[in-house]
Structures are given as C-alpha cells and as structure tokens.
C-alpha cells in the first residue's frame, strides 16, 4: 500500500534531481545543489525553545523568553553555518578500483576546498555503501575512496553520491546528492573449470589440452645432468630403478596460450566470461603467458599485472558499449 504510493514519488524525486543536478564528473556544491533540514536533535532543540517561550509567557518572565529567542536565533544562524560547511566544495570523480561481481569495488572522489573555508566532518557514501568521514581544510584537496558493493558484471552506476554534513551544531543536516558520472567496473565472477579454454602455445602444436593437476606444461624427460635442481628430478622413475632423469618443461617465455571465447561451445555467455576470468587469474599465478580472444576484441599475449588488468577489463566490458 505504502510502497504503491512511494514508488512513483521516488521516481518523481529522481527525475526532479536529474533535472536539477545533471550528471557531471566535476561539480561544485552551490546553493542549487545543497539541501538543508533540521535533524531530530534540531527539532528537539526547537521544541525546548517553544516550551521555554510558553513558560516565559506563563511566568511573565522576560528572561526565560529571551533565552527562548536566543535559542531560536542560534538555530537560524546555525542554518548559515551548516550550509557554509558544504558550500563551495568542489567534488570531482577520481580513479576507480574494480572488483569482481559479488564483491566490492571502490571509487575515488576528490574533494577540493577553495581557500575560504574549511569543510569539516563531511560524510560521504554511495547508496548502500559504507560511510567515510573526511574534513577538508582551506586550499586542500582530499581523496576519498568510497567502497560500494558490485552486484553484477560490467559498468556499475553507483547512483548518486551522498554528501552530508551536520557540523557545527548537529541541529541541522545539509546534504547533496550528486550524479558524478563515475561508474565502477565489475569484473566477472571467477568460476573454476577443469579444462582450459585455450588454443595452443605455437601455431605448429595446434590444439592442446593441458592437464590440470599440476602438470605445468610437462614436456618430457631427459637424462640427469649435474646442475639440474633436485625439484626437477623424476624421483618416481629413479625409485623404480630406471636411472636418474630430469623432467623438463616448456619455457613459458617461449610458448603462450590463447584463452578463447570460442573454445566453449554451448556454454552461456556469462559462464564463459566467468571461466575465462578464472583462467586469467590462474595463468597469471602460474606465470604462463596468455592472450585473450573475445568476439570483436583481442588482447595480444603477455604477462603481468598490466596484462591481467587489461584482460579482466576486457571481460568486464564484454557486450557493453565502449564508453
């Protein structure tokens, strides 16, 4: 019943907000963008002032009335100060820290104060996210990383950034809700799969299924030579009396794998992305060079954090419009 009334109202409110404060990566908090209302304590304060007024009338006591008026005036002045604490702050969208869908990501917000006023005890959060508190002194720029839950893969619009301040008296809260045009990025959830959806290291080898269980690209055995590390000795064969042999592995620097979307026919796209994500993380861990082929996109083979980041971003943005 209540929800039936609330939903259209909230939609109206959002539309009104969007018209009043359109999305932008850099916004200054001006009068147009700041709302201000009393807090519960502010209402309590006003109630006490009203009671004192009644008491002053009844006891014909001018001083009690004067105190009531002073409280009322203080409240009015507090409106100015509370507003001032937010006004003039420049809010910019900063960097982003992606995360896997289902976990958390973070977005950076940069707060810049001009050299007029300090902005003390500001509370920032994304809808549904935890609150960060920060103070910005005059002339200072502060960076705040705000965490937010990532519910699905892809570009995640965090909603409106909520900035609130109750400083100085806590009797009023001034707040603003800004659309920072600052989407977060959610990588696909990692889903393990037994077989690596990859096509071979070199062109000659063609298709190759690499076995999962610690195979480490096992290539073959050769007779032991002094200097071989004991880890590489095939102790099982030695125990069976076949002599001392060393296992040798394909050099990761020479061979690479193409993680390929097309290798998983009949699997639904999100699962394919999740498996590819898992394999990107796996290969990165195993120091195995890899490339990534998606419909309409290709990442040349490589290794290292940069490669992983690019691969995951590519997976995250699969099927989304390029920003």
């Amino acid at each position: 019943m209540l929800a039936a009334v609330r939903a259209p109202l909230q939609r109206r409110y959002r539309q009104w907000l969007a018209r009043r404060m359109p999305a932008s990566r850099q916004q200054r908090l001006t009068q147009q963008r700041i709302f201000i209302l009393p807090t519960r304590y502010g209402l309590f304060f006003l109630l006490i002032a009203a009671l004192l007024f009644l008491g002053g009338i009844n006891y014909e006591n001018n001083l009690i009335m004067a105190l009531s008026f002073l409280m009322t005036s203080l409240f009015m002045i507090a409106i100015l100060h509370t507003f001032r604490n937010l006004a003039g702050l420049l809010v910019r969208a900063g960097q982003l820290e992606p995360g896997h869908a289902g976990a958390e990501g973070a977005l950076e917000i940069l707060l810049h104060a001009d050299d007029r006023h300090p902005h003390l005890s500001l509370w920032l959060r994304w809808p549904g996210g935890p609150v960060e508190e920060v103070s910005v002194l005059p002339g200072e720029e502060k960076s705040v990383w705000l965490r937010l839950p990532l519910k699905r893969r892809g570009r995640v619009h965090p909603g409106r950034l909520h900035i609130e301040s109750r400083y100085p008296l806590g009797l009023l809260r001034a707040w603003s809700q800004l659309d920072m045009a600052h989407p977060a990025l959610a990588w696909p959830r990692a889903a393990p799969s037994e077989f690596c959806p990859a096509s071979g290291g070199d062109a000659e080898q063609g298709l190759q299924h690499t076995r999962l269980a610690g195979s480490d690209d096992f290539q073959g055995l050769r007779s032991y030579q002094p200097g071989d590390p004991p880890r590489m000795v095939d102790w099982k064969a030695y125990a069976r009396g076949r002599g001392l042999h060393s296992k040798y592995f394909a050099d990761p620097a020479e061979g690479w794998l193409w993680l390929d979307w097309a290798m998983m026919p009949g699997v639904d796209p999100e699962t394919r992305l999740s498996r590819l994500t898992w394999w990107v993380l796996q290969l990165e861990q195993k120091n195995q060079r890899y490339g990534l082929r998606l419909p309409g996109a290709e990442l040349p083979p490589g290794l290292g954090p940069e490669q992983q980041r690019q691969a995951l971003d590519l997976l995250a943005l699969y099927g989304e419009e390029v920003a």
Partner: protein
Amino acid sequence: MARVYQVPHHAFGWLVAGTFMAALPHLIHGPLWLRILLPATVLGRILIQRGRLPMPGRVLRVILLGGVLLGTLYTHGTVLGPDAGTCLLVAAFALKLLEMVRLRDAYVLLVLGYFVLATTFLFYQGPIASLYVLLSMLCLTAALPGINHPEAGARAWRHFRLALVMLLQAVPLMLLLFVLVPRISPLWSLEFSQERSRTGMSDSMAPGEVSHLSQSRELAFRVEFEGAVPPPAARYWRGLTYAWFDGRRWSQARPQEISQADYVWFPASPQPRPDWAATLVAARDEAAARGPVYRYRVVQEPSRRNWLYALAVPFADDTRLGLVRDLRLVSREELNQRRDYRVTSYPALRSSMPMSPADEAISLQLPEGFNPRAREMARRWYREAGSAEAYANRLLRWFREESFYYTLEPPLLGEHTVDEFLFGSRRGFCEHYASAFAFMMRAAGVPARIVAGYQGGELNPVGNHLRVHQYHAHAWTEIWLPGSGWVEVDPTAAVAPSRIEMGPEAALQDDPLADFQGIMRDLPWLQQLSNRFDYVQFIWQKWVLDYDESSQLSLLQRWLGDVSPARIGMALAAGAAVLLMPVALWVLLRRRGPGRTPMQREYRAMLKQLRGRGLVLSDDLPPRRLVREAGGQWPAARPVLKKWGRAFEESVYGGQAGTSLRALRRYRRQLRWLRGARGGQHVSPG
C-alpha cells in the same frame, strides 16, 4: 548513517563545564542532597571518561532515579510546581551525565542543559545572573561542535570561539524577537509556593512584642524621579495605615459605616467616583500651585501584598491601581511579580481631604482599661497646652529632652505597653514611639493614626533614582488638625533625628552594616562603583524585566504607528531579513586569508617572530632561504633555526604534519628564549 560514538576529549571539557554551570545556581537554594549529587555525578563522569570507573549498571541507575524522586518528595512534598519541578529536573539532568553512552545521550544532555539554564531565571533575574547564564550557554554551545567534530586533532578553544561567534551573530535577531514578538497574557495561572515569601511590612504591629527588629538589606523598591527629588525629610513612602488599637496591637481597619466602594477608588472602574475622590481630583491644580508636585516611577519588588508605596496623595496611571480613603495606593491583586507604576504626588492636597464622622470616630478609638497613667497625662497636658498643635509639640519636646533612646533591641513590654514604655523602659524603635504618640493623641481627643511604610532611601546620583531597602521600613503617625487635614508627625525623629535625615545606618552606630557603609563612604570609588552597578540594575529592570504588554504596545505604536498583527509580522520579517543579511554575507563570503593550512600558519608565525626580533626578511622566502638569511642576521639562533628548517621540510614533503608540528612549535619557543638578535643589541643586565 550510524556511527560508533565516543565523547571526543576536546568536547568533554565543554560538556562537563556547561552541564555543571547550568545546574550550579540550583545548588545555592536547592536541598542538601542535590548539592551533593551534582558534584558527585560530575566527578563520576570524569572518572568514567578516564576509565577509572565502569558505566553504572541499570540497577544502580534505577536506584538513583528512585532516590531522586523520593528526595524531591521529601523536600517539597510534591513533584509538581516550579520549585519541585526544577529540583527534579536538575537532579535528573545530573544523573543523565552518568549514563551518557551514545551521541544521542550527549545531545539530549546538552539540549536539556538549555532548559535547566532557563529555570535559573525563575530564581535570579539580575544582570549578573543573566551574564552567568549566557556564559553557561556558551559552554553548552561549545560542546556541540565538539561532539560533531570527531577528529582527534580538533582544538577545544576553537569550539568555544565558534560558539562565541555564533551566539554573537544570533544576538541581534534575538533582540528583534524580544522587542517584536507579541506578549500574551499567561495561558493558565500559576502560583508560587509560599516557601519563597519575603520579608516586609505586615498588616498589623504590636510594639511590645518584638524584642529584635531584623534589618534586611533586601531591596523593597526603587524610585526614579522625573524632575525634582524630595529632600530626605520628605521621603515618607506611605504603605498602609493602622487605625485600630486593641491595647497591644495596631491594625488596619475600615470604618463599618463606609462601604468598600466608598473606601477604595479605582479610576478605571465603572463604579461612581466617591465624593472624597472627586474633591481631591478637583483640588489637584490648586494644590500644585500651593506646593511641590513629585512625578516618579516606582519599581516595586514582589511583596506578596496588595499595598503599594508612594508619597502622600498619590495618583497612579495604572488601571489596576486604586486610591484608598487613607491616601495610599492599592493593587487589585497581590504583587507576585515585580511591578512598576508611575505616580504623581501632591503633598499639599492633604488639607483638601474631608473628614467624615466615621473616620473621626475610628481615629479616636481606644480600648478601655489600658495605660491609665498615659491617659491621665494626656488629658492634663492637652488642657495645659490649649490646642492640638501645641500639645503635639510639647509631647515631641518631651521625647527629645527626656532620656528616650532609639534602639533596635528594646525590652519586651507587659500589659500596659504605652505606660511601661513612657514611664519605664524608654527604649524602642519607631513602632514604640509611633504607638505611644498616637495613643497620647487619641487619649487627648486628637484624631490620630499610625502609618507604616518606608522612610528615606539612598539616592543614586548616577541614575537620579532612590533605592529603598527593607531596613528603611518605618512607622510614624498622622494627626488631624482642622484646616491642615492629616499632618505627618514622626516622633522617632524627635528621639533620633539622624534616623530621618541620614538614614537608619546613622542612627545605629553599633550596627556592623553601618561600618560597612562607613567604609563605602571613605572609598569614593567603591561607592561610585556600587552606584553605577545599581544604575545598571535599574536600567535592566526598566528595559528588560519590565518590558510587558503595555510597554511593548507603546513602543510599537511609536515605531509602527498602527499596531496590527500584520504590521508586527511584516516588521518581524523585514527586521529579520535586514539583520540576517549582513551575517549571511559575512559567514558565506569571508575569506580566511591565504595562509590557512597548518604549515602555512607555522611559516607565518615564524616570520612574524623573527621580524619581531628586528630581523629584516622579505615575504615568501622558501623555508631554506628563510633559515639561511635569518641565521646570517642572528648567528646565535642558527642551530635552532636549522633544526626548525629541517623539521619544516620533513613535514611538508614527508607528510607527517601532525607529529612534527609540535616539534616546530617547540623550536619556535626555544627561539623566544634566546637572547640578542642582530649581534647582541639586547644586552642582558648583570
């Protein structure tokens, strides 16, 4: 947006100071248990904050609350009404300090603090009390930014400064509201309990039964004169008259033949004006031509009586006041609040007051069988004197020449009080003399009555006003002389003339208060200070405490012309806009100056300090060059300067401003102790 809460250390001091100050005035008149409770809870809270005590559990809190309820019941017999209510409020407020565990509790405590502060005004209303309340409010308000500023680096004094700035900005708006918001009559009637009834005049007197007259310095009323101030000998503030004597006690009486309507005249009432009042009103102009006219304003302290004080033949401009047949003012209801009223007195009008047979009968009334010796002497002396006037003068001369003494500690008297006093003890204060004199007059057939009121008053030259204290209370007599009407005769003046001319302290040389007054007189500046303060109190009374419906109306009529709700509303809105606009501009647009980060402030402070030592340094030097140039001009300071420079660069580039700021300040302090900038210009003595 819930957060885990702790009272920040920089807010705790203001919180405790504010709550303690808010409750403190109630400890002065509060019961003993309250006086113990409050410091105990403050101490408890401090110990809890320091981790020395655990938070009190629920059981202990319930026990404490129950104890407070019982204590209030025990002290006041009720938990309702202003006295008991305030007591309960303060106690509950003190307990709240103990159970403050969340931000919410701190808010509730602080906002309640404002309420507790306001109750102070139920008991004290002077300018000092108001300043105290303002100061306490400042502390309470300073705690608010404190609890809203969770950062550990915040400075406590900054909260105070902010609170001060905000309150100062709020004051103009408060004044506007105070002047313009319409005063409404009380919504429901409230009675103060009798606990706080005051000392003062009573409606009867029995001279033989009082062996000690207490002298209170408490203020009875103030008088502000417009124009001429009557000389000390003419300052007889008449309160009431005693016409009935039962042998021991003199009391107020209205002759049975005279109706209430004929006894009191309220000018504003629709009832017909009594004949005597008509006669007086008609004779006013003629009396003004014959004698002085005094115009003044009396600010009467609450007396819980309905009689007022004025010089003879008073006419008040207040519709609630009436003139009584014995030439005094009364109010319709008792004075439970301070009241001020304007009076015009015509002393010469006394002779126009007609004497009715009923008045004459009651003014000659004496009980049978008392004071035979005095009666006999009265008859004899009157026969010898021949006229009432000559007889009265002989009696006064006798008081003056025989060994009568003025004392505040007379012996008790037996059955024949007048006989025993006149022919035995001969010691007494004004009541004894007035009683004996009136008795002697009546016994000789001269109509007489006793007047009770105040005599004298201390003139404050700063404000041209008189202060009349309880110790100015006095009793004297009036006798009826054909042709002159009721004539004031003060037999005490015959015995102790200084009592009338110089005030009671002059007549009582052994009074410790007199010593104090003597000291005051020897220290003119102290006297002047006291006069000035009294003037401030008077102005406060006149403009703040007595600002009521009628004064508001007259003020608004002068400003707005026509007073209507719409006009008042417009004036409020316009005034608020005019007052808030500059504050808003100042708050929103004021620049805090460029050097606002802590490091910039530190740099400026250093530059200022070095220049104060006479070093010549240009603006905006990089820190390293500043150190080099300053070191060149002031070699002795070079090591400290170098340390300062290193610490400064470390904190600017190393990013640990918090820790090294303290070090920077320490180096700057060290510099302050170094002698001799610029090659030892400052030569140390010895």
